[in-house]
């Protein structure tokens, strides 16, 4: 009788039978489910900065690496893989010096340049200490604004920054070049003052007298190079290896124009990091001067110092970009091939230690394959004994001596051929230093 009652209820539709959900019920449940939106149609890609390498000097800009916030945490001396650095503005240009870093944004706000790391020679300007208002910081642990003496701070934009061993240069679009830091060899472009104390100095020098607007500034170890819009190159600083290219081996304290083989040639790019310099002309020719102890200029001369720019007759095609390191050099041709020469870990395995003639690195090491034949290298950069290459697909390849984890591979061994660095984003630009690197990255979505 009970069963009959239940069946009558079911037939009248007052009771609902339980059981596994039918396909129709599943489909209806699915359609009724809420839809979540994580990114809108106009979602923009974010710009981020990643840093890695030796962090104990504060050059990475993350204070908890040097002074941990909890007592039981140990300070992190080395950051072996890319670590995100939070910045207030979008960073358009970065440069790594010998233990310090400069970040610049091309905004019109008052604060345009931030610096972190070593500040013993005021290469980051004067950073007023919060504990004692009369003294300055010797080590800057997080990106701190650098006060530039601009005439019109809300109209001038900073185009580029560059760092050397103990000095730095800031290029603006309408107020010339600002230099700060050590000036014992005149690398800041002002007269050398005997026994000048560089630490906690407020002095930032401004350079405006060039034949046309300066479009690129490059710092070598203790010298500075300026490239103007007309294609001329000026230099000042230490010259004992001939790296100023002015025909003598003395120091120069005022930026002076270079002649030699580049007189009259329209130079489109200059590069230097140690004591050797390279310049690329608009026709794809390479010129070099400076230290040649490591066979960097041995293709034209046997001498170990070249103090006048000389044309390097390489038959490798039209050169688009050059990068000069401490002991090795690299150039990028129009077809996207990378050529290396010099001394040290050049990127062609452990057997190739030195060569005077450029050797090509096979493109298959940069991700070129039959599967993706349009992958090619877009930029090359040099640190003191490392190389970095950026491909057009946004991948970063590094090789060279892995000094204190600066390659960012996660391992501490030297890398003898190009190795991918895993960065969560598309790498737009990279700056290499002695023992750390900074990269500007765009997120994927």
């Amino acid at each position, binding site marked *: 009788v009970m069963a009959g009652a239940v069946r009558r209820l079911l037939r009248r539709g007052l009771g609902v039978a339980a059981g596994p959900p039918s396909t129709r019920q599943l489909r209806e449940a699915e359609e009724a489910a809420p839809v*979540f939106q994580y990114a809108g*149609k106009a979602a923009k890609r974010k710009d981020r900065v990643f840093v890695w390498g030796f962090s104990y000097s504060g050059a990475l800009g993350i204070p908890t690496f040097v002074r941990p916030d909890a007592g039981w945490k140990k300070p992190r001396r080395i950051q072996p893989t890319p670590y995100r650095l939070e910045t207030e503005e979008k960073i358009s240009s970065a440069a790594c010096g010998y233990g310090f870093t400069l970040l610049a944004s091309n905004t019109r706000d008052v604060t345009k340049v931030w610096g972190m790391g070593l500040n013993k020679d005021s290469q980051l300007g004067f950073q007023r200490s919060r504990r004692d208002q009369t003294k300055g910081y010797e080590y800057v642990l997080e990106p701190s604004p650098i006060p530039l003496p601009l005439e019109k701070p809300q109209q001038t934009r900073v185009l580029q920054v560059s760092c050397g061993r103990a000095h730095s240069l800031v290029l603006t679009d309408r107020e010339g070049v600002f230099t700060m830091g050590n000036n014992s060899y005149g690398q800041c472009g002002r007269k050398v003052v005997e026994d000048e104390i560089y630490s906690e100095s407020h002095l930032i020098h401004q350079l405006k007298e060039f034949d046309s607007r300066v479009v690129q500034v490059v710092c070598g170890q203790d010298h500075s190079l300026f490239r103007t819009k007309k294609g001329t190159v000026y230099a000042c600083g230490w010259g004992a290896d001939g790296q100023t290219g002015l025909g003598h081996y003395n120091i120069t304290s005022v930026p002076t124009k270079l002649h030699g083989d580049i007189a009259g040639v329209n130079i489109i790019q200059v590069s230097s990091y140690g004591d050797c310099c390279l310049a690329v002309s608009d026709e794809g020719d390479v010129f070099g001067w400076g230290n040649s102890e490591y066979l960097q200029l041995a293709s034209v001369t046997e001498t170990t110092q070249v103090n006048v720019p000389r044309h390097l007759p390489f038959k490798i095609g039209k050169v688009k970009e050059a990068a000069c390191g401490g002991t090795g050099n690299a150039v990028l041709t129009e077809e996207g091939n990378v050529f290396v020469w010099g001394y040290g870990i050049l990127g062609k395995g452990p057997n190739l230690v030195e060569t005077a003639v450029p050797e090509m690195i096979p493109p298959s090491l940069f991700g070129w394959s039959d599967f993706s034949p349009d992958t090619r290298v877009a930029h090359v950069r040099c640190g003191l004994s490392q190389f970095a290459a950026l491909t057009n697909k946004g991948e970063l390849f590094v090789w060279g001596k892995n000094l204190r984890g600066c390659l960012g591979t996660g391992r501490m061994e030297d890398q003898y051929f190009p190795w991918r660095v895993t960065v969560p984003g598309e790498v737009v630009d990279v700056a290499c230093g002695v023992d750390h690197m900074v990269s500007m990255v765009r997120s994927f979505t």
Partner: protein
Amino acid sequence: LNAAPGRPPRKQVRFLPAPAPGGGGAVELVAARVPVLADHPLVRGPRFKKLKIGAGHRLDVKASGVFVLGIGHGNKLLTDLYNCHLTKVYTVGGLFGKATDDFSDTGNLVEKTTFDHITREKLERILAVIQGTNQKALLMYSNIDMKTQEAYELAVKGLIRPMGKSPPIITAVRCLQFELPEFQLEIHCLHETQQYLRKMVHEIGLELKSSAVCTQVRRTRDGVFTVDDALPRTQWNLRSIQEAIRNCQLKVETELEKTLG
């Protein structure tokens, strides 16, 4: 197989008694070739009672495509092919907007998301990064010392491959079709399972700030065997199988020689 004409029965020489050419009851021994009774099919029975069939790399119930089988002596070649560690090619179809618990479209729904912000460019960027990280894994699991010259030379030629156990590695990915909400990828991989490929589709959805499920997994190549060599359901008969074995023999031999030396 048993219906095919078998080997002719062995013949032996026996001396059989036969009546002498002269009359009388004398019996002479005459040499004659006579089939051995032990070889007679009725005595011996059917020739093939069991067949040893071995399978190559596993294929899911929900997946389809090339599935390599070895018969009899071919099973030994199967182990050799496994040790070659050749790449397999899959065509994977995906659908944006849904996330399920087993990453395929027949599972229980977990979440629904929008996907109108996804473009082919973004997908290709993600695929490039996947390829990059897997290339690194390829070099790391191959257990070659990175500091040697031979490691550099193998890396230039692209021949570095893990020759032992390793987690799934993807050597190449490419987007074949892209029409929101569906997309199709071609994946070349090593040591993988089909569920890992479905999980990868789900992770691509997550990276693009949406969600994705896998609708189709089809193996188009397993080492040297491609879809052209494979026999469809209609051709599962003795003649086609024998022909297929004959066609593949040369390919398998050359590949084994090249890889294992």
